[in-house]
C-alpha cells in the first residue's frame, strides 16, 4: 500500500532520477525531508539537488523562475499553501507572464500543501486554487487520488508552464492505493469517479471523497449519483461536466474553498451559460463558510462541506 503522500515523494524521486534539470527547493526539504516528509530521503539519494531554502517565499519562487529561464525544471515546496501569499507576486506576475511576455517557457512546479485538517487553523488550512486559476498563465492541479498525486505531479514537472500543484494535506496519510499507476488520464481532463444518472456532483481534491461517501449513502436509497473529479481546475474540463449534466439533468458543485467566486462559481457559470437546456432543476453549490478556517475541530467540521452536508444539499437537488 502506498499513501497519497508517498506517491508525491515517489513522483519527485522519479522526476529527479529521470531528468537532470529537476531540483527541489523549499524550507526544510533537505536532510529533514520536509515538514510533511514529502521529500524524505531525496537529499541523500540526489545530493546537491534538494536544497533547504531560507524563509523567503518571494525569493524562493523568484529564483525558481530564473532557474527555469536557464532550462531547469524546479519543484518548489511551500511549507503550507497559506504561505504562498508571501510569494504571490512572483507567481502571478513573474511566472505566469514569462512565456506570454518573452516566449521563454517557465516550467516550474509549485507544490502547495493545501486544505483543512483538524486543529490546523486559519493559516495552515487554506485552499488557494481559485486565486491562481483566476490569473492567466498558470495551470492549477488539484489531485484527489493517490494515482493522480503521482502521475499529475510527474505531468506538472513535464509541462512547460508553471503549475500550481494543490496537494491536499487531509489526504496525505489517509488515502492509500495498491500501487503507483503506469498510465494517467491526460492533463486537463476530468474523470468520472462514480457513474450515476440522477444527479451530477462536480468536485475536486478532498471533497471528492466526501462526495463519494455521500453518493454511496444515497445509493442505499436507490439514487445513482454521478461524481466528477475535475483533477485540474485550470483548465477546467467543461466538456466532461456538460456531458454528465446532459445525462443527469442535475448539478451540484462542491468545493472546500470559500463561497465567493472559486471553482463552484466557475463550474455553475459554465454549465448555466453553455448547458442551460441540459438542466432539469436549478444547479446548486456547496462551499466552506465565508469565514477564515477555524482551528477547533468542532468548528472546522462545520466550516467545510462533509458527506453529511453534501447529502442535505443533494436531497434538495433531487427533489427540486
Amino acid at each position, binding site marked *: 500500500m502506498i499513501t497519497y503522500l508517498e506517491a508525491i515523494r515517489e513522483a519527485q524521486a522519479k522526476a529527479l532520477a529521470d531528468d537532470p534539470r529537476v531540483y527541489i527547493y523549499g524550507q526544510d526539504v533537505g536532510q529533514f525531508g520536509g515538514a510533511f516528509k514529502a521529500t524524505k530521503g531525496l537529499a541523500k539519494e540526489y545530493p546537491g539537488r534538494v536544497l533547504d531554502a*531560507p524563509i523567503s517565499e518571494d525569493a524562493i519562487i523568484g529564483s525558481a523562475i530564473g532557474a527555469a529561464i536557464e532550462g531547469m525544471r524546479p519543484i518548489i515546496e511551500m511549507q503550507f499553501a497559506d504561505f504562498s501569499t508571501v510569494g504571490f507576486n512572483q507567481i502571478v506576475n513573474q511566472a505566469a507572464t514569462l512565456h506570454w511576455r518573452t516566449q521563454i517557457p517557465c516550467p516550474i512546479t509549485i507544490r502547495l500543501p493545501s486544505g483543512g485538517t483538524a*486543529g490546523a487553523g486559519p493559516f495552515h488550512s487554506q485552499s488557494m486554487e481559485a486565486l491562481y486559476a483566476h490569473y492567466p498563465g498558470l495551470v492549477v492541479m488539484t489531485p484527489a487520488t493517490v494515482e493522480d498525486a503521482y502521475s499529475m505531479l510527474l505531468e506538472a514537472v513535464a509541462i512547460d508552464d508553471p503549475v500550481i500543484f494543490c496537494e491536499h494535506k487531509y489526504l496525505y496519510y489517509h488515502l492509500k492505493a495498491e500501487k503507483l499507476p503506469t498510465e494517467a488520464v491526460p492533463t486537463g481532463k476530468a474523470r468520472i469517479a462514480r457513474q450515476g444518472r440522477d444527479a451530477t456532483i462536480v468536485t475536486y481534491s478532498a471533497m471528492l471523497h466526501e462526495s463519494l461517501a455521500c453518493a454511496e449513502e444515497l445509493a442505499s436509497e436507490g439514487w445513482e449519483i454521478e461524481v466528477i473529479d475535475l483533477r485540474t481546475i485550470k483548465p477546467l474540463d467543461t466538456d466532461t461536466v456538460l456531458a454528465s449534466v446532459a445525462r443527469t439533468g442535475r448539478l451540484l458543485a462542491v468545493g472546500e474553498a470559500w463561497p465567493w467566486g472559486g471553482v463552484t462559481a466557475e463550474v455553475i457559470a459554465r454549465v448555466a451559460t453553455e448547458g442551460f437546456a441540459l438542466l432539469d432543476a436549478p444547479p446548486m453549490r456547496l462551499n466552506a463558510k465565508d*469565514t477564515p478556517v477555524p482551528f477547533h475541530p468542532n468548528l472546522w467540521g462545520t466550516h467545510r462541506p462533509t458527506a453529511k452536508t453534501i447529502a442535505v444539499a443533494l436531497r434538495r437537488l433531487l427533489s427540486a
Partner: protein
Amino acid sequence: MVQATAVSTASADTSDLKARFLTAFRWMLLARVVEEKLAALYRGGKITGGVFLGKGQEALSVATAMALRKGDVFAPLIRDQAGRLAFGETLLDCTRTYMGSRLGPMRGRDGNVHRGRPKEGLMAMISHLGAMLPVVAGTLLARRFRGVEGTVGAVNLGDGATSTGAFHEGLNLAAVEKLPLVLVVANNQYAYSTPTSRQFACEDLVDKAVGYGVAGHSVDGTNLEACLDVLDRAVTAARTGGGPQLVIASLLRLVGHGEHDDAGYVDPALRKSPLGADCLELAEQRLLHENWTTSSALHEMQQDAQRQVEEAVATTLREPLPDPDTEDWCPLATRHLCEGGYSPT
C-alpha cells in the same frame, strides 16, 4: 561621599537585581511548568493541532516582557510563554486557546500560540513569519498621531524570520519613522530543521542593525541577568527617543520545533556548547549561589507553579467547547455586510 554613594547604589542595584531576577525566575518557572503540561496533554491526545514550546528561551522572553510597562505593545511569537505571562497574559488564556475553550480569547477560532489581546497591547500573531513587525510599527505610529508618548513596542522573532521580506520592510519602516520599537531576535540556531548557515550569510545578525540605521545589541540568551540588562537598556533607549533597537540573542532551542518533532537534526556539539545551556537551570543555580533563595523556597515555587497550572487546566477542561450551531459565522464587524447566506448548509 562619592564612594559611599557608589556603594549604596551598588547595593540598591543588587537588591533591585535580586528582585527582578526572582520575579523573572518565577515567570520562567511557571512557563516551563505549563509547557511541560501542554506537552503531556499533547502526548495524551488532549490537544488538537500543534504544540510549540519555548524551552531554553524563557530568559530572553521574560526579559523582554519585564522591560515593558502597562500601555506598551508586545508581539510575542512561538516561544514566548514566559514573556506572555510576564506581560500579563493569564495561564487560562494559554490553556483555553490550546484546548479550544469557548471562553478563551480566541474562542476556538485559532489555537496554540495564535492568541493575544490586542486591546491590552498583546498582539495576536498570524502564522506568517515577520508579519507582526509592521503591525507593531503601526501601533506606534498611531500613538504618535494620537500624541501618546513614552510607550514602546516589542516584537519577538526567530533567526529564520530575519529572511522574510516582512522583517526587512517592517524594520526599515520603523527606522524611517524612528519609532520606539524593539525587535528581539532569538537566534536559536535553527528555523525548524534549517541551520543558520542556510538562513543567512552575515557573521552575526547584529551586523544588520547598521544597514537599517538602528541601534544593535547582542546578548547571551542563556543568561538571565544579561537578558534583563540588555533588554532594559534597549527598551529604555527606544522609550527615550533612540529609535528602533535590534536585539540579537544567542541560544539554542532545547525542544523540537513543535512537540511532533524530535529535533534529531540538532548538532550534538551545539547541545554541549554554552549555547545549549538551559537558562532556567542557570538561573536557579545563580539564585542559590547568590543566596537569593533557598532550596526549599524553590521547591515551594515549583509546587505553586504546578498548582496554578493544574488549576488552569482543570478549569479549562470543565469549560464549553465551541459550538458550531451558536457560532457566529460572520467575519465582519459590520454585521449587515456579511454574506453568510451564500454558503448553504
